[in-house]
């Protein structure tokens, strides 16, 4: 429940510029100097921060002409911000702060038949990160050396949903520019929206470059999950309830774990799951049922 509230608050804080219907424009204040911890398009009319993935691509796309002009802008500000967050909490921002992750959790509540996602697809997001965020924007350039933001332009469903559709409504004059690019993005967005109903967090698990960056820190962050094999009964309840399909009993700081703590608080009855902060381990001697009894619930 606490996590839900934090997700609601984070989504609101990332999108709290409510004057856009009156100004007819996106927010242009200084808060946009800061990167949001989650994937949140900066061209969303209500967005108050900068999407770190959009900002990173932009640094890559303008690196060559920038260097020629004497600017050494490698995107270290964004990389440093993400690295700091990752070093502290790994993929926790995905589970607690990202508006697009939150949206996927809500859509998954729509009743339907549900499908697992093959583990092999979780490697695709690293390909998306390396190719669409770093290599293509840097290497494929025009005659002046400028690249383009490949992930934003050809893939990002958050951009289409949060910025594309609202901006076309807010600025009808842009509608004349709609073409094949827009229909491609509309198709990708529709594809993920349908998949979100059928599978849990499909975009986070298979395609998100920001999740891919944070995931690299899961094993080395200050906040880490711990597993007590002595208490584990291998009932697999944690795996069945995990929104990311993690087999906690096999890999307790798995790259896909978003530290939502569902396994610890709602699944494991044996107290085998806990977390540690900076090496000091929070012991959980009893499972969530034991804790509920102790609280008189």
């Amino acid at each position, binding site marked *: 429940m606490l996590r839900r509230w934090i997700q609601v608050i984070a989504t609101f804080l990332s999108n709290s510029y409510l004057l856009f219907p009156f100004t007819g424009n996106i927010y242009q204040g200084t808060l946009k100097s800061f990167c949001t911890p989650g994937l949140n398009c900066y061209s969303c009319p209500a967005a108050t921060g900068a999407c770190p993935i959009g900002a990173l691509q932009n640094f890559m796309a303008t690196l060559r002409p920038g260097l020629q002009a004497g600017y050494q802008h490698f995107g270290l500000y964004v990389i440093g911000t993400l690295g*700091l967050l990752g070093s502290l909490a790994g993929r926790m921002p995905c589970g607690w702060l990202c508006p697009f992750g939150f949206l996927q959790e809500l859509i998954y509540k729509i009743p339907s038949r549900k499908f697992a996602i093959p583990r092999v697809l979780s490697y695709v997001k690293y390909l998306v990160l390396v190719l669409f965020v770093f290599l293509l924007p840097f290497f494929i350039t025009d005659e002046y050396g400028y690249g383009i933001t490949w992930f934003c332009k050809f893939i990002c469903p958050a951009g289409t949903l949060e*910025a594309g559709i609202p901006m076309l409504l807010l600025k009808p004059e842009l509608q004349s520019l709609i073409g094949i690019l827009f229909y491609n993005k509309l198709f990708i967005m529709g594809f993920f929206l349908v998949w979100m109903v059928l599978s849990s967090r499909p975009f986070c698990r298979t395609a998100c470059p920001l999740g891919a960056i944070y995931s690299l820190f899961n094993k080395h962050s200050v906040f880490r999950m711990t597993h007590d094999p002595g208490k584990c009964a291998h009932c697999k309840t944690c795996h069945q309830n995990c929104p990311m399909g993690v087999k906690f009993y096999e890999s307790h700081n798995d790259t896909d774990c978003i530290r939502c703590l569902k396994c610890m608080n709602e699944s494991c009855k044996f107290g085998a799951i806990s977390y540690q902060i900076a*090496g000091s381990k929070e012991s959980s001697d009893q499972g969530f049922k034991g804790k509920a009894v102790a609280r008189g619930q």
Partner: protein
Amino acid sequence: MKIQEKGKTPFLLIIFFLFLLLVGINAGEVSTVLETATRICLSCIGIG
């Protein structure tokens, strides 16, 4: 019950990324991010 465990890696990572962050700020990247994020991104919308 608290159990102390060793683990310097997260703190080394924090120092490293804090350093990158400060280098980025010093190089003037904050204003580049602000500039990028305050322009309407036609690629994000899917029309540019």
